[in-house]
């Protein structure tokens, strides 16, 4: 939480417009630290959590409820489950399965209960909340593209692209992004997050858009979190 507190206490800087994406490189390193609890999970549990998160990408209503419950748990508040009760049974099952994957059960009397400490870690809660809250700020189309990237298993390639951007905003293109169609999906996803990707043979240039807001940062958080979750040992 050190990074977050630091960001909260100081004036939040604006992401510069039309700048090389390397302006976010330091942040990207910080995100890796935030997502360390994912990397430390046993592979089977991490894979189960990845599947849950991937499922949530397809349903904004579920994502909103998950994020709200996680925010309340992170703040130490008793979660208000009214919104959860309004979901249909399959959506509700999706929320409870995700909570269970990070050590919280909400079966008894519609309350969120902490499972034994072997299954639950506060760092895992923070990391999951960090990821889902970034996803929640994304538009439906952006979430849809991100889900496609997960299905096509190009999240790692996107994460490497973001990590290897030089100070000038250039990066080399690796498989599977060399392929035209796959690159097109990445290009669209980045465009929806106010990042311009320009391909030049085997290299790519990434720059922030005219009014980037926090969207480039949000995409970096989501890609970094999903890449860590989908990593295999």
């Amino acid at each position, binding site marked *: 939480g050190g990074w977050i507190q630091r960001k*909260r206490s100081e004036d939040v800087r604006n992401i510069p417009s039309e700048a090389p994406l390397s302006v976010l490189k330091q942040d990207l390193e910080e995100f890796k630290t935030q997502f360390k609890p994912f990397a430390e999970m046993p592979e089977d549990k991490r894979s189960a959590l990845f599947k849950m998160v991937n499922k949530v990408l397809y349903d904004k209503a579920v994502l909103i409820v998950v994020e709200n419950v996680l925010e309340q748990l992170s703040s130490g508040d008793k979660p208000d489950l009214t919104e959860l009760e309004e979901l249909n049974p399959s959506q509700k099952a999706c929320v409870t399965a995700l909570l269970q994957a990070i050590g919280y059960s909400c079966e008894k009397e519609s309350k969120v209960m902490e499972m034994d400490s072997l299954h639950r870690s506060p760092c895992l809660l923070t990391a999951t909340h*960090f990821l889902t809250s970034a996803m929640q700020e994304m538009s439906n189309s952006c979430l849809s593209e991100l889900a496609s990237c997960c299905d096509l298993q190009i999240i790692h390639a996107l994460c490497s692209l973001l990590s290897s951007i030089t100070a000038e905003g250039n990066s080399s293109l690796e498989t599977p992004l060399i392929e035209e169609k796959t690159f097109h999906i990445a290009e669209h996803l980045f465009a929806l997050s106010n990042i311009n990707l320009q391909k030049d043979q085997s290299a790519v240039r990434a720059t922030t858009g005219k009014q980037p807001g926090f969207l480039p940062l949000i995409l970096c958080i989501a890609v970094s979190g999903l890449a860590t979750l989908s990593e295999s040992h």
Partner: protein
Amino acid sequence: MFAKATSNFVKQIDSDGELIPVARLNDSDKLQPLCLVIKRKRFWFWQKPKYISSPFTLSDVLTGDKPIKPVVVDSDFLKYEGTFGDIIGGNVETEVGNLNISMEGKGSSKLQSSFGDLRKQEVDVLHLLQDSEERVINMDHPFVQQTRERPNEVFGVLKEKVITTQKCLISEQVQEEGQCGSMLGLRAKRIKVSVQENGNMQKDSSVVLEIPPETVLAYSIIELSIKTDGQYELCLLPDKCGGFEAETRKKPVSPELQSLVDGPMDEPMEPD
């Protein structure tokens, strides 16, 4: 659907401005001039704040019997017809390890919002400033107490709202079609139903909402900066943030030190 329509409306007319789209049709009645709205700051700095309407007005939480009656200026705003849609078509074929995955998806969605002629109701801030002079918030009011307990919540009063003037329609049509072929159970883009291997799917939906006149589509607030004794200030500049003044607890002073400052004390101070 209503939230999507109001959000698109605000994006079009007041992107990065002060207007807040109304997310729930049910909140419309509560959003009256000078009603209290809670602004909840979120956990991470990049998250947009949440706005929660309340059944209380500023007068309800003030001490004294004299209510503050808002002076409201009513004016024509604009006429709004919006159509948002996208057509997605794609064919992706890729090899992941030994697997060949192919995916073809076609889909279209169309959101049409015909809000018609809109009006704006704006509170006269100068009058509000005058009426607020020497008025104090009742810090014992349960709503004030409960909000104050949460450090991330700030009070705001409704300054302006954009309302419909006639019955209007919001309609959404979604048409989705997809084909999937792979060794994995892949879902095609934008389609929420699960698919069998090498399956086809189609999903259409059409929803129409009729919105009554005087429905609030968007509003803006003035944040309140509230001192511990209940005195409040209207935050009139965009960079001035509201909130509750933190209570400072006086450190207990030893009787010897206190006597040096104030002279001898009548009663010994209770230890904290």
